[in-house]
């Protein structure tokens, strides 16, 4: 069967996908092979599975459901500080979990701001612990991501479409039905699947806000299998189950999100003529901003005092974290760009699936697996930082692919044939057309990867060397030594650094006047 010519080869992408799959499945196999005993599935594992699925479905549906009106409002409105607001809205996603939880509790907790107001008026304080607390925290973490993914969908609609719609007098419902609904159908399944998978592996949130053993997730069951029972077999089994669930969700999402894009446009800045209702849009923007920014303000307020008394060691670990985040971002781009190109030219859903596996993999299993594999050759502690950068890149890969793939498909379909007729192929197409046209998505993906890596406390805990702690690990150590004020200061520093990295990279990628 003759294949139609393509402007870029899919081979590097397939190789990158194989590498990622080898990292995730190889480490899982290493853990399984090392297992001494196994008890198989217990009743409490089934309870954990049930709770995990319930909270992940609820969290994904609510996050995406809220993100649609918010993203629509942001896509339609231009106001002062809009791009700053969009950057700030990204913050919850990249905060270390315990910091974000403490921030949320200062707003929604038993002695939080809202409860204080309620108690003042004679009502009882709100109860945040339980399933609803877990879902609240997950929406806080994932609403920004969902909003950004959906907003990107809106921005990928060529401005000519809106121009034509305005000329034809399409407004309101018909505009929604003709332009926005098909776009949402293409974007939403992916967004749902990503958030479902993120919440599937929830660990600290579920445990802290869940209220008790009712809220055990699979990831916690894996942790327990490791620490107290040292039952590697059960850990591997649970991890495989988690992978299978995510792969199923991802596969369903990939099937559902088929559908063509909107074709080529001239990249004019999008202008909107459909009025919509400014009051309703403002309502959604203000609601989302309040929900996301109040807990962040709480983090800032409690951190300011500690920020000026930070020990040098915290500064040092901040520098280490920036280094790891930079390395992780470079690794990510080296993996994700060829993979996105491969998906765009050959519709390799297996390549996409390999990328999504990173979401479901338990950092604990990957870390332990790498430990088992590295140990005969070298001292794992010496490799703590490179391993952390690599694993963080694999963890950020699913997000990067969700951001890059739609744009990559559009770029190839818009410019592929012309490029081929000009004999522009391979590396030339990749560097002259592919990368420049995807700058905004590359910037966003790189920013996200850098920020996620900054906040990560997964593998480093297993490999840690006392001399080279990353900032999140240092924050935990401060808390363990009762230095709560310094920990809050460290958390604020982490927030500022993550935001700055994200903003720099994301900003650097944008070429439209508007974001």
């Amino acid at each position, binding site marked *: 069967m003759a294949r139609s010519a393509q402007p870029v080869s899919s081979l590097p992408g397939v190789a990158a996908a194989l590498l990622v799959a080898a990292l995730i499945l190889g480490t899982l196999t290493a853990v399984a092979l090392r297992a001494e005993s196994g008890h198989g599935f217990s009743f409490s594992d089934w309870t954990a599975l049930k709770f995990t699925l319930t909270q992940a479905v609820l969290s994904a549906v609510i996050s995406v459901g809220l993100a649609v009106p918010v993203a629509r409002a942001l896509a339609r409105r231009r106001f002062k500080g809009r791009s700053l607001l969009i950057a700030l809205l990204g913050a919850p996603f990249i905060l270390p979990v315990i910091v974000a939880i403490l921030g949320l509790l200062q707003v929604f907790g038993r002695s939080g701001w809202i409860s204080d107001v309620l108690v003042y008026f004679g009502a009882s304080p709100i109860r945040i612990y339980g399933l609803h607390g877990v879902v609240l925290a997950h929406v806080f973490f994932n609403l920004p991501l969902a909003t950004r993914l959906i907003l990107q969908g809106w921005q990928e609609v060529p401005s000519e479409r809106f121009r034509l719609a305005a000329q034809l007098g399409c407004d309101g419902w018909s505009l929604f039905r003709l332009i926005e609904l098909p776009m949402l159908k293409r974007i939403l399944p992916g967004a749902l699947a990503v958030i479902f998978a993120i919440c599937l592996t929830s660990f600290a949130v579920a445990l802290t806000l869940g209220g008790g053993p009712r809220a055990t997730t699979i990831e916690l069951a894996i942790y327990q299998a490791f*620490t107290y029972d040292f039952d590697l077999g059960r850990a591997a089994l649970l991890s495989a189950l988690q992978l299978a669930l995510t792969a199923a969700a991802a596969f369903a999402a990939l099937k559902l999100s088929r559908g063509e894009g909107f074709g080529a446009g001239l990249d004019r800045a999008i202008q909107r003529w459909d009025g919509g209702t400014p009051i309703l849009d403002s309502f959604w923007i203000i609601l989302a901003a309040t929900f996301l920014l109040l807990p962040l303000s709480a983090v800032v307020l409690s951190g300011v005092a500690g920020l000026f008394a930070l020990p040098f060691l915290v500064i040092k670990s901040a520098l280490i974290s920036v280094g790891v985040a930079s390395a992780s971002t470079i690794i990510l781009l080296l993996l994700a760009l060829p993979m996105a190109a491969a998906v765009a030219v050959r519709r390799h859903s297996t390549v996409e699936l390999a990328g999504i596996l990173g979401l479901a993999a338990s950092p604990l299993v990957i870390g332990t697996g790498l430990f088992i594999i590295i140990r005969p050759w070298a001292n794992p502690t010496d490799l703590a930082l490179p391993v952390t950068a690599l694993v963080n890149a694999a963890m950020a890969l699913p997000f990067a692919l969700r951001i890059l793939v739609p744009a990559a498909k559009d770029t190839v379909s818009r410019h592929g044939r012309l490029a081929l007729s000009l004999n522009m192929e391979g590396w030339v197409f990749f560097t002259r057309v592919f990368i420049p046209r995807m700058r905004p998505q590359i910037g966003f993906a790189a920013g996200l990867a850098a920020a996620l890596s900054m906040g990560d406390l997964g593998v480093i805990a297993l490999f840690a060397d006392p001399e080279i702690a990353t900032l999140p690990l240092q924050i935990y150590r401060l808390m363990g030594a009762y230095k709560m004020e310094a920990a809050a200061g460290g958390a604020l520093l982490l927030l500022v650094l993550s935001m700055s990295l994200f903003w720099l990279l994301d900003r650097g990628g944008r070429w439209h006047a508007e974001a």
Partner: protein
Amino acid sequence: MKHLLIAAGLLTATSAMAAEKPELTVYTYDSFVSDWGPGPKVEEAFEAICECDLNLVGVEDGAALLSRLRLEGNNTDADVALGLDTNLIETAKKTGLFAPHAVEAKYTLPVDWADETFVPYDWGYFAFVHKKGASVPSSFRELAESDTKILIQDPRSSTPGLGLLLWVKSAYGDEAADIWAGLSDNIVTVTKGWSEAYGLFLDGEADMVLSYTTSPAYHLIAEEDDSKATAAFDEGHYMQVEVAAKLAGTDQPELADKFLNFMVSDAFQSIIPTTNWMYPAVTPASGLPAGFETLQTPEKALLLAPEDAVAARREALPEWLEALSQ
């Protein structure tokens, strides 16, 4: 890169001498090695007498530390493991990874100590920390009947959480399940580890948090804040005794013995109270730091023998899970 550094180092006389020094590797938990923990001071004091290089490696907490050693098996770099507690001893011994010690010391523990493998280095009583002035229950029963809100840790992922499970089990035996059923509406949430729970408590999320009777000493001595106290429970208080042992496969057996002996000496023991915020296993000649006399001293110390702790956990964990899953 590393090889270059080593090669460059060999050219200078001082590094050449450093390279001849034997190295003792001690695995411990994270907070021990942090700059605010005992680690840096212990390293300085031991290196002053041992003519060796002390390498402290931090691995999360005590339970994770044991898992790490089991993962590495006989192939481990560790010469000494420091940071298990009595509840982990039985499991640790079954691995066959540890060797007997020859340490003799006059322990000031509230219980008799005669273990041929594990040497205790500090201890403390579990207790609920609260803000002074609050009305405080004086037993688990009273706590269960009150509206007092508490924060606890998960016994499946933390040593204090496991300590609480065994505390209730050793105090109430077969009635432990009923106590947990009564406590379930007092529990605000169950956290993975100590840090999360203590952070939530300081943020005002509950009236009391499971910690140690020595926790108020930190606030008093390091922060000059005397607003925290611990609740005295009539049943007695369960203890945590933290221990260390020599690995059977060590290539530095003499140094490891030297370290274990050093660990029960004044030099080490006087570092513990204000860095690890626990009681020293052998009270140093200089006594306890000022402020420790204000701490609550439980009338009765509870502690299950290592082999009983494993059996008690096996029985108590399902009870706990069931009571809190309702």
